[in-house]
């Protein structure tokens, strides 16, 4: 296990109940700085609940979670300032231009006007999209949109970025380019917390946790998980754990 000070996410006995329904049942795990952590589980296993708690949008019923050194139950504002978030469903605004989206999110994340302008130019250049900066987002193909959304989610250099099914429906080449962007950011020290239904993407993570019915049923590197369950692919691991 890694040293505590290197852990960007620390979760201890985390419980979330909705009435009598236990969505998160005593979760315990930690995620290191710059680690790519895959958070898997069947639909309804409780993943979204955990992500909401870790991003300060929902409070735990009991237990504790620290993100970037801040307590998610008490320092929600500080947590929010130090994280980025994107998902397939919610990313950028279709009726704003590319540049306006950067401006908007940069403002929300508390960047100065100068930082926003500098970052926007830099990121657009990197994506080779400078010419498209005044296009409405709805005119941009999905794959590019997702790459933009990721760039926006990390433009304030957060300690951790939460990616909730970021590559759903994206073509296989773009999906891979997207992962190259993830690696680059992880190399820079940003922790990546990602959910996906593509099992090959589970292999791209350094460690994986698999949830079933509110509990974490397995947590290890993809290699060790396959060894532990005596199977060849992450798909088989997933089926063994998630089919309860």
């Amino acid at each position, binding site marked *: 296990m890694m040293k505590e000070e290197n852990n960007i996410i620390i979760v201890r006995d985390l419980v979330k109940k909705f009435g009598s329904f236990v969505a998160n049942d005593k979760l315990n795990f930690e995620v290191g700085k710059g680690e790519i952590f895959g958070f898997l589980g069947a639909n309804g296993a409780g993943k979204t609940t955990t992500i909401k708690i870790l991003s300060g949008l929902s409070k735990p019923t009991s237990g504790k979670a620290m993100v970037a050194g801040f307590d998610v139950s008490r320092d929600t504002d500080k947590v929010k300032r130090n994280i980025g978030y994107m998902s397939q469903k919610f990313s950028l605004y279709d009726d704003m231009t590319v540049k306006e989206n950067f401006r908007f999110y940069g403002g929300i994340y508390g960047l100065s006007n100068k930082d926003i302008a500098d970052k926007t130019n830099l990121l657009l250049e990197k994506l080779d999209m400078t010419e498209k900066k005044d296009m409405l987002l709805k005119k941009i*193909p999905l794959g590019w949109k997702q790459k933009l959304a990721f760039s926006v989610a990390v433009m304030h250099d957060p300690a951790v970025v939460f990616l909730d099914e970021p590559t759903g429906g994206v073509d296989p080449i773009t999906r891979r380019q997207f992962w190259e962007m993830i690696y680059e950011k992880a190399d820079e020290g940003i922790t990546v917390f990602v959910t996906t239904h593509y099992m090959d993407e589970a292999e791209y993570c350094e460690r994986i946790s698999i949830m079933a019915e509110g509990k974490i049923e397995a947590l290890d590197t993809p290699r060790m998980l396959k060894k532990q369950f005596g199977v060849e692919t992450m*798909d088989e691991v997933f089926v063994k754990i998630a089919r309860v």
Partner: protein
Amino acid sequence: MSVRVDINGLNKSFESVEALKNINLEISPNELFGFIGPDGAGKTTLFRLITSLLLPNSGTIYVDDLNCEIDFKKVRNITGYMPGRFSLYYDLTVEENLDFYASIFKTSLKENYHLIKDIYEQIEPFKKRKAGALSGGMKQKLALSCALIHKPKLLILDEPTTGVDAVSRREFWELLKKMQKTGITILVSTPYMDEASLCDRVTLMQKGEVLAVDKPENIVNDYHGDLWQVSSNNMNKLVTDMTGLDKQIKQVFRFGETVHCTTKGIEKSMVTEIIELGLKKSDHDNIRIDRAQPQIEDCFLSLMVDNN
């Protein structure tokens, strides 16, 4: 009792966007036929043309001898369609939705209960619940029940497994295979390449074009070139370092726990030498190079590269 689907020279544009470009497909009676491709491939547009929710700019679609444009009422009567977005009535209960769809097709839940028994049984305990309050998996089962209630000969499913976890996806495909045995012709679209192998035949689609049509095993066997899987102690940098290593090493893509690349007509010893030498220069260690069996996704990537 099964129907055939013939698509000839089909074109559809939305303003300047060509959503479908000269599509020609023949789907046999009782086939489980897959449309595989990312968002924007044209899968939904094609399904909306077959169901006459849209009209083509040119070309024809026949379901047996029925022209989808002219005999649209007859085609609709024998077609079950499950759109990608949940499109049942949220404020009706499970049972009311089914009754409603049955009544549109002048039948009843009672009369055709046997057709949907396997699926409906799983949501029947919730039949008094409003559709809007169902979980994703249950909504999907209800939508499928509604699409089957009038005993269609042709079933069209638009991305039924998108956003669905790997376990539920498997269960859904088992269900499809079972339905196929009743004699129905099934058209199903998916963005998940690994689901291609579960179809009798598939078409790989991208940006309104058909890249390939065949049995999944033939598509895989037709892979041009030799596919290799490479791994090292620094996987995160491997794609970057292998790209541009040598002009003979093509199509370098991450694939699960290895990186795949393709060569044409060079021997293993040569391939190994080029890659090992090159990678050692950029500080890779524990380099492993093995032949790999292409999967549908390798083929799709290769066709995409050729097409661009």
